């Protein structure tokens, strides 16, 4: 399989943030749960500022891949290189401090908190006041609270959720919850944003909105995006390069057009006559 970025480079001419060098490289990642091989010898890279999609049938190992990238799972073999720093495994808090944020397939919002508090919690790494400073409301704690609030309000405005900022998230409809979760991830000002099925279970309008937000995030902030998505139309439209997984193995990698015409990929999705 040859990796070609030709067409993407052509695309990148009009981009606000042209592609940079690979920001994240995964090499020979293997992940097993007991006897189950979730991922087998998977390697691919993600260029700075690109939108990289991971697709594949159910159970292909897509979510496991994201979990390896931000350290929820520790792979048995392989290494992750982030900006030239090589790690055999990632830890979730370390990934966060490197600027890797994510959303989850099943919404993982803090259900007992308001929209505002959820997104404020996403600013964790930008708040340094100790618990004593917060308890006594010392100047640094107060300043941090208002400064971060201003940053959060920018995200709230960007995602058009001003009207629900004080609503408890549990009361929101599904589509809005997904949007809030994107906001919470954005609040960290990440360099890489991992999106696990950001459009699952949405109707066509909600999908359009979400696509717009993803493209805008990439365009305004230059955030590198790795996303898992089942809707092929969406994947082919918004992603720059696509990785295809099947049964834990990589079966395709390239631009949407290349992947679309790849025989292995077609076989995996449509089945092979026996």
């Amino acid at each position: 399989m040859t990796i070609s970025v030709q067409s993407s480079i052509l695309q990148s001419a009009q981009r606000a943030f042209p592609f940079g060098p690979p920001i994240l490289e995964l090499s020979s990642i293997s992940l097993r749960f007991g006897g189950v091989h979730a991922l087998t010898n998977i390697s691919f890279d993600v260029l700075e500022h690109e939108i990289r999609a991971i697709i594949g049938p159910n159970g292909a190992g897509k979510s496991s891949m994201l979990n390896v990238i931000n350290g929820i799972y520790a792979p048995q073999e392989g290494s992750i290189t982030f900006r030239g720093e090589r790690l055999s495994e990632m830890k979730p808090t370390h990934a966060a401090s490197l600027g890797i944020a994510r959303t989850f397939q099943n919404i993982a919002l803090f259900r007992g908190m308001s929209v505002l508090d959820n997104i404020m919690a996403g600013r964790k790494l930008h708040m340094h006041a100790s618990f004593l400073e917060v308890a006594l409301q010392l100047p640094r704690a107060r300043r941090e609270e208002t400064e971060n609030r201003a940053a959060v309000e920018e995200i709230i405005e960007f995602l058009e959720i001003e009207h629900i900022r004080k609503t408890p998230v549990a009361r929101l409809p599904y589509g809005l919850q997904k949007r809030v979760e994107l906001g919470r991830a954005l609040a960290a000002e990440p360099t890489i944003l991992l999106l696990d099925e950001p459009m699952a279970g949405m109707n066509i309008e909600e999908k359009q909105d979400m696509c717009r937000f993803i493209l805008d995030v990439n365009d305004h902030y230059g955030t590198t995006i790795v996303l898992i998505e089942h809707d092929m139309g969406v994947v082919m439209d918004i992603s720059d390069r696509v990785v295809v997984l099947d049964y834990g193995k990589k079966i395709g990698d390239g631009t949407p057009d290349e992947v679309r015409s790849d025989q292995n990929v077609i076989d995996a999705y449509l089945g092979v006559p026996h």
Partner: protein
Amino acid sequence: MLYREAGQFRTSYAQDSQIFPLRQDRVGIAILLIAAVMLPFVANSYWLSAILIPWLVLSLVALGQNILMGYAGQLSLGSAGFMAVGAFACYNLILRIDGIPFVVAVALSGVCAALVGIVFGLPSLRIRGLYLAVATLASQFFIVWALDKFGWFKNYDPAGVITAQPIVMFGHNFATPREKYWVVLAIVAVLALLAKNMARGSVGRGWMAVRDMDVAAEVMGFSLLRTKLQAFAISSFYCGVGGALFAFAYLQTVEPSAFGIDLSFRILFMVIIGGLGTIMGSFLGAGFILLMPIFLNIFFHSAFGKSVDATITSALEQVIFGVMIIMFLIFEPLGLARLWQLTKERLRLWPFKH
């Protein structure tokens, strides 16, 4: 109409995130505080030393339990154990350090309890929910056992009982119930304010994030280790301070078994009845659990007098109290604080329905 925000504009984020954004709330809290300070001039010493002081002290302990259970979501059954640490630490500090002011001793005994709390909070990193509650039971039994076993903690008192020293600060002996009440009120009010600040700030968001979805919290950079142990430490601090006040302002003579498992359970009920994850709920819950039996007792006495056997009335009181708790949990599982919140929402619209 009575409780509405119309006309009160918040034009900056600092204004929006202040502790009581509504004028009605500020006025209400001010009235409440003034009333609480003035209360000793009307209440007699029975009211002060048998009802108000234990209420305030247990509210503080319930607040500590609420930080751990309501905000950080770590189920714990060791609160009375941490109270015991605070009480005996305070006794030893005053005994062994000459002229230490009472507040300093109380604060340091809170720190002692916090350290013990961190040790017994370590299992929370591996286990959660009911299993954690069972693990924290160990702290409850271990602490009471250790205080019983080692005479040093009790200054080798032959009866195994400590007698709380007088409360001395700034060269003044706070001896009367009225003075003790003020000391307790001041400490509880300050600590409640600090708890409120933590709960509504970044610290509280960390606790609630870990409570609601720990994987997501970790992915955002919250260290589970630090957040959980911090909650254990701060919660135990509140319990320890409460324990010291319980011994010095209320019980006077204390033995380790006063801090048994039944006290832990009562504190647990206070938090559940009051409302998980609310500061006010801790006060309301403590009031309900502590005062309701007293009111029932008074009511039965005045209703039946001597005509009915006392054992029957006291059994009846317990039955009614139990039924009230069950009814309460069915009709308002979110606690008294939620009830108050609903009332406020009603008052906002009153006299209209919606």
